[in-house]
């Protein structure tokens, strides 16, 4: 890093992946889900209702461009063209600004559907810890939402809050979780109702002689307490699944599990793609229904 260059500690890793074992050219129905969130955008492509590939990247200042960039990443990697995709569904904050989408569905329904695919049909409670909001969702065995609650009034308990702390501590965001366990004693949580207050408290703790790791632990605990109070309003029914970027932060996840007294279902897939994956699966179901009605007619 040269002098004067500012390191962006909050910057998380963007990923693009395709399943090389599948040949999309053999597929009957190709669907895509585009989740344009407040902080990140994802594009997921499903072939015949199975995950084929995805791209997860930072949302820019223009929703249509974010949607195009997200899908272009997967298209380029797979050799597919946009015209090859049968149906596209937009979701997330920018769902109505996806220029090539045929339909928009809320991220609440899409996250439930995505979690049902990623965590299995025994998942009943979903916690989506997004960039600028947090959602607690109950669903049935088909991934249909039965109860939901969201908090998007402030950044407390969201990914953006974690990014603020990463920058404040000057520690890469991916290291925050593991470092939060490297403390001799678990500290009291900082303010859980406001990121600005939490940041002020964190600064105060640093000045009082707390180590960076201890301050991070205090913030992870605050975030966990914040979302647990949200999820307890609708109740926890096993299996429990966490989606969104914060699901990758063990410092928050382990503390949530401890407070709730239950373990979250683990997945090998990227927790950030749940919304886009759910959207792509909705598209597949819709296409199947249309095919069935066309045959019946």
């Amino acid at each position: 890093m040269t002098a004067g260059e500012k390191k962006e500690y909050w910057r998380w890793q963007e990923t693009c992946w395709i399943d090389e074992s599948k040949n999309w050219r053999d597929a009957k129905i190709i669907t895509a889900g585009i989740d344009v969130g407040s902080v990140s955008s994802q594009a997921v492509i499903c072939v015949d209702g199975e995950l084929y590939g995805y791209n997860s990247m930072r949302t820019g200042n223009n929703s249509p461009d974010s949607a195009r960039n997200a899908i272009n990443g997967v298209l380029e990697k797979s050799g597919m063209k946009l015209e090859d995709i049968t149906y596209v569904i937009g979701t997330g904050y920018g769902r109505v600004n996806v220029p090539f989408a045929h339909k928009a569905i809320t991220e609440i329904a899409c996250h439930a559907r995505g979690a049902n695919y990623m965590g299995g049909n025994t998942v009943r409670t979903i916690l989506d810890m997004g960039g600028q909001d947090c959602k607690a969702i109950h669903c049935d065995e088909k991934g249909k939402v039965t109860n939901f609650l969201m908090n998007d009034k402030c950044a407390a308990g969201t990914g953006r809050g974690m990014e603020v702390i990463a920058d404040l501590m000057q520690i890469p965001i991916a290291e925050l979780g593991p470092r939060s366990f490297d403390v001799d004693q678990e500290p009291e949580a900082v303010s859980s109702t406001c990121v600005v207050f939490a940041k002020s408290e964190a600064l105060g703790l640093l000045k009082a002689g707390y180590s960076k790791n201890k301050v991070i632990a205090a913030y992870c605990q605050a975030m966990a307490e914040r979302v647990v109070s949200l999820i307890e309003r609708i109740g926890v029914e096993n299996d429990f699944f966490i989606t969104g970027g914060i699901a990758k932060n063990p410092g928050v996840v382990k503390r949530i599990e401890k407070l709730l007294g239950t373990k979250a279902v683990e997945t090998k897939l990227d927790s950030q793609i749940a919304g886009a994956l759910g959207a792509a699966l909705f598209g597949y179901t819709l296409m199947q229904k249309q095919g069935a009605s066309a045959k019946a007619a």
Partner: protein
Amino acid sequence: MIANYGYKDGSGEFYISIDTDKCTSCSAGRACLTACPKGMFEIITDDYDDEVAAVKQAFRRSLAFDCSDCKPAAGYTSLPCSTACTPGAIKHSW
């Protein structure tokens, strides 16, 4: 589906819960639309293609203030929205 609209902040939890299963065959003639003095409710088509009541987006982050005129402190003994919704779909958390 139970849809909870609202928020939690430093002053408390403010949620309006709507049991949308009771909305699909509303026997109150969508009375919530006119019962709320501020017109906070609307009928939307949800993600499962059902026509259900919802709190308008513009009010979801200010319920504590917007609903205060209908609370006991303002002289009401019951909430106009909950009373008008005879199927019992609408509930306030505070």
